[in-house]
């Protein structure tokens, strides 16, 4: 399969009047089309910075990001970004929130509208199209946020702790839910999280970052038996604990 994303020796520092804070140091990895990668690491290690760099919100201090073999600045690949909080606008209905990206990119065609309606329908939000975000539960809001991202038909999805604002029970369910949606849509995705069980239950591969300035400590490919094909199913699989402990040990040995 084609490589959709390649990071080569990426470094990044934050600058303030008080000094320079190195956030990322020499990060290199690549991803294949359709792969789901989770990035874990201690909090404040620069995980979110990584996504901002890939999406082009920030420019790396050193190194190169290539998307589908081209420099990320020239790339026409559509990148979807899901933030920690859903950021649905209260003054818009759910439908109008979902088409915000289309509106911003001037792509609000009849076909795109149709697609928005279909996605809302597929993910159980059809009856809430005209509802306000505050009328929805946390899980449904996060789904609406996902639809807002998916309607732009991204080739690469960046998920920045999208479940961390939810309570534990909702988080498990929404994680399972959104994990399956991403699989079904065959999206390539990078999930940044500090929740190891979330990473193990969702990803094909876990990249472990060290404390700041973060570099890659280890990459753990996850291989589960045939029965564990959903995130919740994986949590019950025997491999789950093995992987969890492995990643846990790696993280703590570098504290």
């Amino acid at each position, binding site marked *: 399969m084609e490589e959709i994303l390649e990071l080569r020796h990426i470094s990044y520092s934050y600058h303030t009047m008080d000094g320079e804070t190195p956030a990322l140091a020499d990060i290199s990895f690549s991803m294949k089309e359709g792969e789901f990668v989770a990035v874990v690491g201690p909090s404040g290690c620069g995980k979110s910075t990584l996504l901002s760099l890939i999406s082009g919100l920030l420019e790396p201090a050193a190194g190169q990001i290539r998307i589908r073999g081209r420099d990320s600045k020239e790339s026409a690949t559509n990148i979807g970004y899901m933030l920690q909080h859903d950021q649905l*606008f209260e003054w818009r209905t759910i439908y109008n929130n979902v088409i915000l990206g289309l509106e*911003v990119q001037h792509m609000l065609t009849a076909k795109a509208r149709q697609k928005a309606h279909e996605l809302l329908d597929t993910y159980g939000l059809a009856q809430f199209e005209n509802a306000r975000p505050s009328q929805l539960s946390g899980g449904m809001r996060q789904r609406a946020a996902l639809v807002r991202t998916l309607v732009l038909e991204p080739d690469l999805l960046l998920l920045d702790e999208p479940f961390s604002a939810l309570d534990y029970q909702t988080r498990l369910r929404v994680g399972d839910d959104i994990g399956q949606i991403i699989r079904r849509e065959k999206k390539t995705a990078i999930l940044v999280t500090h929740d190891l069980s979330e990473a193990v239950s969702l990803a094909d591969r876990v990249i472990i970052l060290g404390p700041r300035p973060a570099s890659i400590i280890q990459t753990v490919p996850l291989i589960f038996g045939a029965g564990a094909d959903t995130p919740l199913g994986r949590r019950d699989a025997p491999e789950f604990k093995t992987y969890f402990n492995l990643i846990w040990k790696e993280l703590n040995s570098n504290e």
Partner: protein
Amino acid sequence: MNSSISKAQLLYLRRQRARRAAVLAARILLLAGFLSLWEYCAGRGIIDSFIFSSPSKIALCFAGMARDGSIFRHMWVTLLETVTSFLLVTAVSMLAAVILWLCPRLSEVLDPYMVVLNSLPKSALAPLLIVWLGARTRTIIVAGMSVAVFGSILTLYTAFCGVDPEKLKLIRTLRGTRIQALTKAVIPSSIPALVSTMKVNIGLCLVGVVIGEFLAAREGLGYLIIYASQTFKLDWLIMSILLLCIMALLLYAVIGLAERICLRRR
């Protein structure tokens, strides 16, 4: 729906209604009590009705001026000037706040000047405005604006800057421009701040207009106040002040109504 209301809830509702009625009654009584005490003291000579006037004298005075329509013309002039300067303040401060938000460098440079202009007592500007613009309606409208506009710009700009940075990040992740961040995120989330600024501004514009009329008018309630004080017609003076009270109340109520309609639609 009604059948499902419990007894305790009914009792609670009744208490709340009774409380609200009591507050309203107390308010009316306070006004009525004040007016009758005033009338009584003036009639009995406890206070000098030449200086303090009395409700009945004011009413007579109003009736007299209503007959030839002159009082309505004064009220109309003041109202028109206030509303015009209010609308201009709203438009100008919105535009200025947008420009400042779009050019952070500019706002950084202008910040101390805005603070100074905002703290300056605007009544000090009025004589200057008369010299520059002449003694006419235009001057009074500008005087009205000068009181409100700087504070309004600062409040709106602060509200714009207070928008959740994650909302702006969302627009950026959707590949939106800064203008789109403004129109899609910043302005809609600043609507409550805009409405509360408007509530403050309508009062301030009235203040500025009256100051302007003190100095540069031949019509309007501010003019009437100055004229009455110079000719010692204190009935006129106090009546004008009362009319200003009523006008301020009504203007505020109109904005409040607009706010409620606007919020219901959201």
